[in-house]
């Protein structure tokens, strides 16, 4: 089992993902955005950061990196892809996931630990029962998820909403629980096939108890388990 972590110019969480994955006992390697060979990797992570400075729009330039054509092929092959924060934004710009991420409603960058509720979804990259509440940090300026009404209906009907922001007891506050204004409190979604998963929170920041907690581990262990199952 080997995770591949893509480095775009301006990515800045790639080493955190590698650390997290290694900490959990799995192998990982870096993939330069100009590379086009993904053989040797069982899962791809698009990490957080500010690819191309987030200029024009978050993810707008990065989606044209040479590696992205291969990422699309990887997705079409049904293999696991996870985009974290800026990685989610890139997946959205590349149309591997529907919708877009706008500026946080408060117009402030937000770095804080929030509660997330795992939803009943077709994405297998989350190794907890639906309803589980996880504590995971967010760290973004543009995490305000939006899509048109039709898309939202489709996401719901097809169980593509993987994670929602919630209160610490798993409930939703009357005005919504998203700290960034995200539509329907959406924190993470997957594609129709369930193998491409994008989320704004940073699970890689909470796998090592010394630096924050362990609630993020389930995101990576789920993928590892799946890959092991497919292999056997």
């Amino acid at each position, binding site marked *: 089992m080997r995770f591949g972590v893509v480095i775009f110019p301006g990515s800045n969480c790639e080493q955190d993902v590698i650390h997290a994955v290694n900490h959990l006992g799995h192998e990982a390697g870096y993939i330069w955005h100009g590379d086009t060979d993904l053989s040797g990797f069982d899962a791809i992570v698009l990490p957080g950061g500010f690819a191309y400075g987030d200029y*024009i*729009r978050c993810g*707008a*330039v990065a989606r*044209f990196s040479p590696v992205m054509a291969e990422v699309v092929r990887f997705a079409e092959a049904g293999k696991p892809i996870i985009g974290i924060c800026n990685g989610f934004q890139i997946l*959205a*710009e590349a149309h591997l996931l*529907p*919708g*877009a991420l*706008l*500026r*946080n*409603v408060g*117009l402030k960058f937000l770095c804080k630990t929030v509660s997330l509720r795992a939803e009943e979804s077709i994405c297998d990259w989350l190794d907890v029962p639906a309803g589980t509440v996880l504590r995971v940090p967010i760290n973004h300026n543009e995490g*305000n998820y*939006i*899509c*048109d009404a039709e898309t939202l209906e489709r996401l719901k009907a097809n169980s593509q909403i993987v994670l929602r922001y919630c209160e610490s007891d798993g409930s939703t506050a009357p005005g919504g629980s998203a700290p960034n*204004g995200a539509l329907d409190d959406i924190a993470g979604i997957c594609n129709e096939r369930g193998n491409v998963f994008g989320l704004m929170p940073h699970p890689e920041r909470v796998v090592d108890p010394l630096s924050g907690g362990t609630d993020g581990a389930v995101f990576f262990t789920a993928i590892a388990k799946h890959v092991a199952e497919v292999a056997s």
Partner: protein
Amino acid sequence: MARFEIYVTYKKGIFDPPGATAERALQNLGYSEVAQVKIGKYIQLEVADGTSAARIREMCDKLLANPVIEDYRIETVGEA
């Protein structure tokens, strides 16, 4: 050199946080006559002479605007 100007705005129905905030801020500052503020992008493009508007549209579709959330309008300004 030819010059084009591109105006990128949010699609109808898409909430625009900076616009909404500016609207509130102006009203708080006493500009009660303000009804709505929308903030988009104003892109000035300098390209080689003879570049067609179709080429510019391509650049917008690909990179300068996101068709999922944004509309754009192109204006030819003339020589630079």
